[in-house]
C-alpha cells in the first residue's frame, strides 16, 4: 500500500502541473492531433546474426538483431532476439528464457571488469587484466610446485596435482572446452569436473 500512496501523490503533482499548463494551452498552444498508425517495425535495417540459445540442450536457433551495420564507426548493439524459423528443432519458437535473452545480455549484474577481493576484505577492488592474470598464475605455480605428486607411495609415476581444482561450465563452446581441457590436463590437474550432474 505504501507504494500506491506515493504513486497517488505523484499523480496529484502531475495533475496540478497540468492544470497550470492548461492556462497556457487554453490560449491556443494545443498539440496537433496525431493520426492513428501502427508502431514502426523496429527491425527494419537491423543487422541479423545467427546464434544458438545458451540455456538448455535443445539448442534452439536464434537470430540476433542489432542496430548498426558493422561499419567502422558504429557501435553495434543487439536490440532484439527471436527464434530462427529455419531451425529444424525450434522452427522459430522459443521458451520464456530464450524469449528473454536480450535481458541476459544486458543484465544489470553483468561483470564489467576484473575484480579482486583480498583476504578478509569486505569489498571488491577493480584491477587490470594484467594484474589479475599475474596474480593467478603466481598462485597456480606456487601451489603446483609445492603439491605436485610425481610418484605415489608405491613408487608408481602418477604426475597428478590434487590441491587445485577446476570446474568447467556447461554453456561454454566446444572450443572453450577444448582449450580448457588442454590447459587443465597439461598441468596434471585431476580435481576437474563440469556441470553434467547438477
Amino acid at each position: 500500500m505504501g507504494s500506491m500512496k506515493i504513486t497517488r501523490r505523484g499523480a496529484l503533482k502531475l495533475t496540478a502541473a497540468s492544470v497550470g499548463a492548461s492556462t497556457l494551452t487554453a490560449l491556443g498552444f494545443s498539440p496537433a492531433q496525431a493520426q492513428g498508425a501502427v508502431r514502426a517495425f523496429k527491425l527494419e535495417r537491423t543487422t541479423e546474426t545467427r546464434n544458438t540459445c545458451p540455456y538448455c540442450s535443445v539448442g534452439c536457433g536464434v537470430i540476433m538483431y542489432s542496430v548498426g551495420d558493422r561499419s567502422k564507426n558504429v557501435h553495434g548493439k543487439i536490440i532484439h532476439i527471436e527464434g530462427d524459423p529455419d531451425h529444424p528443432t525450434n522452427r522459430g519458437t522459443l521458451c520464456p528464457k530464450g524469449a528473454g535473452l536480450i535481458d541476459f545480455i544486458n543484465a544489470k549484474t553483468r561483470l564489467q571488469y576484473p575484480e579482486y577481493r583480498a583476504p578478509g576484505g569486505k569489498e571488491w577492488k577493480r584491477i587490470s587484466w594484467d594484474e589479475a592474470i599475474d596474480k593467478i598464475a603466481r598462485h597456480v605455480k606456487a601451489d603446483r610446485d609445492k603439491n605436485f605428486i610425481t610418484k605415489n607411495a608405491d613408487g608408481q609415476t602418477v604426475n597428478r596435482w590434487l590441491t587445485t581444482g577446476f570446474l568447467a561450465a556447461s554453456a561454454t563452446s566446444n572450443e572453450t572446452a577444448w582449450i580448457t581441457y588442454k590447459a587443465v590436463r597439461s598441468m596434471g590437474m585431476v580435481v576437474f569436473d563440469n556441470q553434467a550432474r547438477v
Partner: protein
Amino acid sequence: MTNLWADIKNTDLVVIMGGNAAEAHPCGFKWVTEAKHHKKAKLIVVDPRFTRSAAMSDLFIQIRPGTDIAFLGGVIKYLLDNDKLQKEYVLNYTNAAYILRADYKFEDGLFSGYDEAKRDYNRASWEYEFGDDGFVKADTTLQDPRCVFQVMKAHFARYTPEMVERITGAAKDKFLEACKWIAETSAPDKVMTSMYALGWTQHSKGSQNIRTMAMIQLLLGNIGLAGGGMNALRGHSNIQGLTDIGLMSNLIPGYLTLPTDAQADFAAYMRPRGFKPLRPGQTSFWQNYDKFFVSFMKAMWGSAATKENDWAYDYLPKLDVGAYDVLRGWEMMHQGKINGYFCQGFNPLMSFPNRGKLATAMAKLKFLVVMDPLATETSEFWQNHGEHNAVDPAKIQTEVFRLPTTVFAEEDGSLTNSGRWLQWHWKGAEPPAEAITDIEIMAKIFLKVRELYQKEGGAYADPILKLTWDYEKPQHPSAEELARELNGRALADVPDPRDAARLVLRRGQQLNGFGELRNDGTTMCGNWIYSGCWTEAGNQMARRDNSDPGGLGLTPRWAWSWPANRRILYNRASADVKGAPFNPKQKQVWWNGERWTGYDVPDYGPLVKPEASVGPFIMNQEGTARLFTRGMMRDGPFPEHYEPFEAPVANPLHPKVGPNPVARVFKGDMEVFGKAADFPYVATTYRLTEHFHFWSKHVRINAITQPQEFIELGEELAKEKGISSGDLIEVRSNRGRVKAVAVVTKRIKVLKIDGKMVHTVGIPLHWGFTGETKKGFGCNQLTPYVGDANIETPEYKAFLVDVKKLGTTAA
C-alpha cells in the same frame, strides 16, 4: 539422446518420467505435441508432482520420489509375464540368450560378491559363461534357466503390481493402464520414446533408473528406431559437448579414460582396453581405441609425443581413485586439502548439495578464480547478504578473482545439443567494458603459467612447456583454430591401408572422419567423435540446409552430429535381421542388396551383409545390447529398487538393505542424514520453466515472470499444518533450512506408502542472493551429500524435510 528432438514426432507413445520436458525443454516438448496431433500419440507422465508436462498428458501417475526402479521393474515384469516383447529384436539384438555364470546370484537385496566393509562388490561373478571357443555361450530358445532372459524374469518376479503400489504409491489400476499402453509398442512397427533428465539421474541409483527403462526399450525393440530411443534431455546448452570433450576428472575426449596408477605405461594402459569380441564375427568398434588415444596425445603434445616415449604417456595424470568428481573434490576442500579453485561459468555454491558444507569448504581455499558473465553467488560467497548468506567476511581469508566473460552473443563457437548436433554460432555484438572470452582467459592464464615455468622451472614442467600452442595469435586462439584441432588433421601423408600407393590424406589436411585416424602418430585429433566436424570441405557445424529427405525430421545437412553425422544411434536395429525396416512407414536405413543405405548414416559397416550376423550394437563387444550389464556398473548387473538415503519407510523388498549398498558416503555426511521420525516429509527439487538454473534470475524478463522463491505443498499437508497459499514457511532438513512462500496445490497428493501416508514437498531451485529476483536461500541448503553409485550425481530428488508455518504473509 540416442535420437534427436524433432524425431519425437515419429513416436506412438511418449513416456516422460524422471524429467519434465514441458517445463525444462519447452521447444523440445513441441515435438511431443506434434506427435500427439499428427500421429495420435499418447503421453504418459510419471512424476512425484502433476507437472506442466502432466498437464498435457493422457495419463498421469504420481509416484513417491526415488521409486522409479520399482515402477519400471513392475513394467518389465508385466512385459515378460504377458509376452509383450519384440521377439526378433530381443533374441537377435540383445544379450537375452547369453548364459550367465553359475555363481552369479541375487539374494535379499544384494548381488553376489558384496563386501560390507568396503561398501563395494567383487563383480567377478557378474559375467557370462564362456565356451571353449572363447566366446559367450548362448541358448537361442531362451529356456536355459541361466540365460539372461530367465535370470531377468526371476529377478523382476518380485515387482508385482501390488508391490509397485506399496513402494511407489501409484494406484494399481493406473499402473496397469500404463503397462498396457507401453506393451502395445512391442509391435515391430510401434515405438515408444523415453524422455528423461535429472529426475532420474539425481538419485543414489540414478544410473540404474535409466538402465531400467533402457531394458524396457530393448524388450520392446524401441532402440535405434525413429520415434524410439532413450532420450536424455541434457540440462545445459553444451553439457553434452563438455562431456564429449571429457572435461571430467577421469575422462579423455571421446569417452576415453585416464590411466590409473597401476597402468605404468601405454601397453599396460591398453591391456584392459582390447575390447575383444565376445561373440563370433563382431565389430567391437572400440578395438580402435589406440588410434583415438594416440591421435589425442598428438593433438595435445604434437612432436613431443612419440612412439618412443609412449606418446608422452607420462604427461597424463594417473588416477588412484575412480574419479575426483565434484563431491569428492568438495569433500577434500572441506577437509582443507584444496588450496585453489577455478569456476568457469559455474555457480557451485548454489549447485552442489549441502550449502552449509560448501560455504565452510570455500572459506578454506587460498584462492578462488571465478570466470563468469554474471555476478554469481559463488563469487560472493564471502560477502554478507543477511540471512541469505550469513558470513563474516573478516573471517574468510580466501583471495577471490572475478573475471568478466562474454556471453553467447559476443563470441563464435559451437555448442553440442542433446541430440548430439554441433551447431556453430556467430558473434553479434561486442562484450561490455573489459569482458573477454573464456578462450582468451584460458590462453592468458596458461601462457602466463608457462612463461613462469620457462623462466623459473618447477615441478614437472614438460607437459606444460610442450603443450601444442600453434595458434596464429597465441593470446587469442580463434574458435575456428580450436574447432579444426578437435576435428583433427594429418601430420604426415596418410596412405590407404589397403593400397599403400594411394593417399587417404596429404599432410596438413583436415580429417574427413574418425575412420582416417591412425595409431602411428600420423594423425592428430582432439576428440575422435568430433572428427568430421571441420573437414577440408569447411565447417560442417555451420551448415544450414534444413531439407529432410525421408520426412523423419533427420535434417542430415543441418549442422553436424556426432558420430559421423549420424542422427539416430544404433539405427541398424531399426531393420530386421534381413535388413528390411521393421516399420516400412518410417524407413531409416536398409540393405539394398549391395550395401546399407537410407536417410541416415548407417550405424554399421556399410558393406556388412545382414546375414553376417554382426550385431547392430557395434560399440559393444557382444554386438548386442545388454539387458545384463556384466560388471560394468558398480551397483549391480540388473537394476534393483533401493530406497533414497533419506526415506520415509524401510525398503519393502528387503528391509535390511535400504539405500544403495555401494553408494559412496563420506564420513560426516552419513551422520547428517535425517530420520523419518524427525523429518517426516519427502522432498524433491526441480526446475521451473520460467527460469534457467541460477542465471535467469539475473534476467529481468524472467525475474518478472517468477520473482520469488517458493515451495509447493499438497492441500492435505497444508491443511494439517494450517498453511495457506502465500504464507511464509520454513522447510528444514538435517542440514539446513529454507524460508520461502508456500504455494498450496492440488497437484501434489498424499500417497499411501507401505501402509503409511506420505506427503511430498516440492522445492524449486532457482533463487539465490544475487540478481533481479527477490533474495532466496536455494534448495541446496537442504539436500544430502551423496551421489549415484556409478557417476556420483547428487541425490537432489529424494530426501526428508519438516515443514513449519512462520507467518501469514510473505514478502
